C-alpha cells in the first residue's frame, strides 16, 4: 500500500468571474522514502493539488472532491483536528518564497519550538534543544545563537534552510516541497537541493518535489508527474520519461530544457500561452499549442492511458503509438544533432 494515495482529486474555485477548474481528476501515489517530481508550467495546478490534499485551500471558496488516503486513512474532508495532527507532524510542507514564509515578528526559535510543541508533549527546554539540533542539521552556522534571531536577520537561502528545518523537526513521513529553490540564486539552489538529498538519506522521508526545473527532476526524482491545465498529462518513472516521453507537451518541455551541452540557439520554446482554467479549451487542453493536433483533439479529452512500458507509464494523447514513436525519434535526432554539433 502506498503511503499517499490520491485518486481523482478535483479542486474548483468559485470566483467573481466564474469557476476556476484548478485541479481536475488528478491521481497519483507516493511511496515511502521515494521522491516524486511534479513539473508543469506556471498555473498548471501543482500548488493547488498539494494545498488541497493538505486541507489548506479555503473551503469557503473552493469545491473539493476525490480521495486522499494517507497511510490508509482518508484525509480529504477530514475534520480540522484530524488534519492538524497530520500537518507538520506526518506531512511537512515548505514553500516557494522563503522571504515571506516565516512570521516576521517571531524569533526563529519560537517558530521552530512551536512546531515541536504543537505535536509533542515536551517542555520548552526540550523543544528548544530539538530546534537547535535541527538547525545544525540543516547546516546553519552558530545555530545556538542564531536561534534567537528574527527572520529578517537571515538571508534567503538561510531562511529556506529554516523552513526545511521546521518542516522536518517532527520527522514527517512526507515532505512536500513547493518550488523550494525558485526564489534563490543558482549556487544557493544547488546547496539547498544537496541538503534535501542528504536529509532524505538520513530521515528516510518521501519527498514531493514541485518544480519548473526538469534538471532538478532528473537528478532527484524516482517518479515524475507532468501537469498541464490542472490535469496530469503524463506520469512515469524518471528514466522512462526522459528516454521515451509519450506526448507532445512533454516533448516540448524536454526541448526547452536548458542544458550546458546544448547550444541555446537550438532551445525550443513551447509556443503559445498556458490554457485558461476559467474557460479551458474543449477536448485536450494542450490542443491550441500542439503541432500535431487533429480533429479529435479539439473534441474529446484523451484518457490517461498506459503506453508500451506498461501501467507505470501513463499519458494523455490521441496520437497513435506509431505516430508518436515516429515523431519522438525525429525530435530526438534533432536534439541529438544539436548536442553533436555543440560537442
Amino acid at each position, binding site marked *: 500500500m502506498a503511503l499517499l494515495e490520491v485518486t481523482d482529486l478535483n479542486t474548483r474555485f468559485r470566483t467573481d468571474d466564474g469557476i476556476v477548474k484548478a485541479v481536475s481528476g488528478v491521481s497519483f501515489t507516493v511511496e515511502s522514502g521515494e521522491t516524486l517530481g511534479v513539473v508543469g508550467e506556471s498555473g498548471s495546478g501543482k500548488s493547488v493539488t498539494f*494545498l488541497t490534499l*493538505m486541507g*489548506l485551500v479555503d473551503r469557503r471558496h473552493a469545491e473539493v472532491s476525490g480521495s486522499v488516503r494517507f497511510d490508509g486513512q482518508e484525509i480529504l474532508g477530514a475534520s*480540522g*483536528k484530524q*488534519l*492538524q*495532527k*497530520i*500537518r*507538520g*507532524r506526518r506531512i*511537512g*510542507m515548505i*514553500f516557494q*518564497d522563503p522571504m*515571506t*514564509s*516565516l*512570521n*516576521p*515578528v*517571531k*524569533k526563529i526559535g519560537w517558530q521552530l519550538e*512551536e*512546531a515541536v510543541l*504543537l*505535536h509533542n508533549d515536551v517542555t520548552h527546554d526540550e523543544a528548544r534543544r530539538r530546534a537547535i539540533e535541527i538547525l545544525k542539521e540543516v547546516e546553519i552556522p552558530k545555530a545556538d545563537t542564531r536561534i534567537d534571531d*528574527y527572520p*529578517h536577520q537571515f538571508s534567503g537561502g538561510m531562511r529556506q534552510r529554516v*523552513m526545511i528545518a*521546521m*518542516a522536518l523537526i517532527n520527522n514527517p513521513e512526507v515532505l512536500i516541497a513547493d518550488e523550494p529553490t525558485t526564489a534563490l540564486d543558482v549556487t544557493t539552489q544547488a546547496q539547498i537541493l544537496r541538503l534535501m538529498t542528504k536529509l532524505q538519506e538520513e530521515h528516510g522521508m518521501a519527498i514531493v518535489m514541485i518544480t519548473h526545473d526538469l534538471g532538478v527532476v532528473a537528478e532527484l526524482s524516482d517518479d515524475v508527474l507532468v501537469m498541464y491545465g490542472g490535469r496530469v498529462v503524463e506520469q512515469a518513472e524518471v528514466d522512462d520519461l526522459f528516454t521515451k516521453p509519450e506526448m507532445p507537451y512533454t516533448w516540448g518541455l524536454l526541448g526547452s530544457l536548458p542544458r550546458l551541452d546544448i547550444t541555446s540557439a537550438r532551445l525550443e520554446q513551447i509556443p503559445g500561452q498556458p490554457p485558461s482554467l476559467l474557460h479551458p479549451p474543449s477536448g485536450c487542453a494542450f490542443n491550441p499549442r500542439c503541432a500535431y493536433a487533429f480533429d479529435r483533439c479539439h473534441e474529446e479529452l484523451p484518457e490517461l492511458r498506459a503506453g508500451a512500458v506498461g501501467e507505470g507509464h501513463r499519458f494523455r494523447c490521441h496520437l497513435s503509438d506509431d505516430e508518436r514513436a515516429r515523431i519522438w525519434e525525429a525530435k530526438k535526432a534533432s536534439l541529438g544533432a544539436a548536442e553533436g554539433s555543440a560537442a
Partner: protein
Amino acid sequence: MIRYLIRRFFWAVWLFFMATFITYVIFFLIPSSPGRITGFGFSVSPVQAAQINSQWHLDVPAYQQYWIFVWNMIRHQSLGYSFQNGASVRWIMAQDARVTGSIVLGGAVLWLLISFPVGVLSALRPRSLFDRAAMVFVLVGIASPPVWLGLILAYLFGFKLGWTPIADYCNFASSAGGECSGPVHWAYHLILPWLTFAFLFAALYVRIIRATLLETASEDYIRTARAKGAPARRVVVRHMLRNSLLPVVTMLGMDIAYVLGNVLFVERVFNLHGLGIEVLSAVHTSDVPVIIGVIVCITLAVIVANFIVDVAYAVLDPRVRLL
C-alpha cells in the same frame, strides 16, 4: 532598540520646540499688544500700557520673548499668566487637560474595546450575518457627524430616558469632596461624550482591523503556520493579531491628534470645560498666553502619543528596531 528609542526621543523634543516656536512667531507677529488694547478689560492710558508691556516683557524683540518663554517653561515650568484674569496658565491647563484627557483617553479605550472584538469576529467570518451587521454599524458610524450624534445621545439617554447626566465634569479623585467626584461619577458623567467619540472611531477601526486581518490571513507565513498544524484559533491569536496590530497602532497615533483637534465639539455639546472651550474663549479675548498654553498642551500630547506609537512599533515589529 535603545539607540532607536533615543533617536525617537530627541526627535520628539526637537518637534516640540519647533512647534512652540512656530506658534510663538505666529501669535506675536500679529499686532495685538494687549497692554495697548485692553488691560484686563479696562481701557488704559499709554503709561499704564507701557508698564504692562514691560511687566509682561512685551517691549522686547520677538526672539527674546520666545527665549524668555522657553526659559520660563524649562526653568520654572511656567507658561505665563492669563491676560484676562492673571491666573497661572499652567494651573488653567492642568484643570482643562484633565477634562479633555478624560474624554479623549476614555473614548479611545472604549472604541478599541468595541472595535477589536467586532473587527476580529467579522474578519474570521467574512460575509457572514455578523459581518454584514457590523458593516451596517460601520456605515452609520462613519456617516454620522459627532455633534449631531452627541446631541441625539444627550436627548435620548440623558433627557428622554434619564439614564445618564447630559453635562458637566466630575473629578476622578474622590478627595475633592462633594457628591460629584470619584471614579464612578467621573465615568458616569463621561459616558455620553465617550460614546459620541467612540461611535465614529469604533466604526473606522472595525473597518481597519477587519481589512488588515483579512490581508494578513493571506500572507505566506500564515499558510506556513497552518501547514505546521497550528489550530485556527492559535493562528489568529499568535500569528495574525500582532502583525495586524501595526497599522492599527499607526492609526491610533494619528487619530489621537485628530481627536484633540476636534474635541471642542464634544466639549460644547456636553458642557465640559476642557482645552477646546478654553481656547475658544481665549481667542475671543486675545488671551495669547492661554492660547499658546493650549497649543503647547496639545502639541505635547500629540508628540507624546507619537512617541508611544514609535515605542509600540519597535516592541511589536523587530524589523523596526534596526532603523
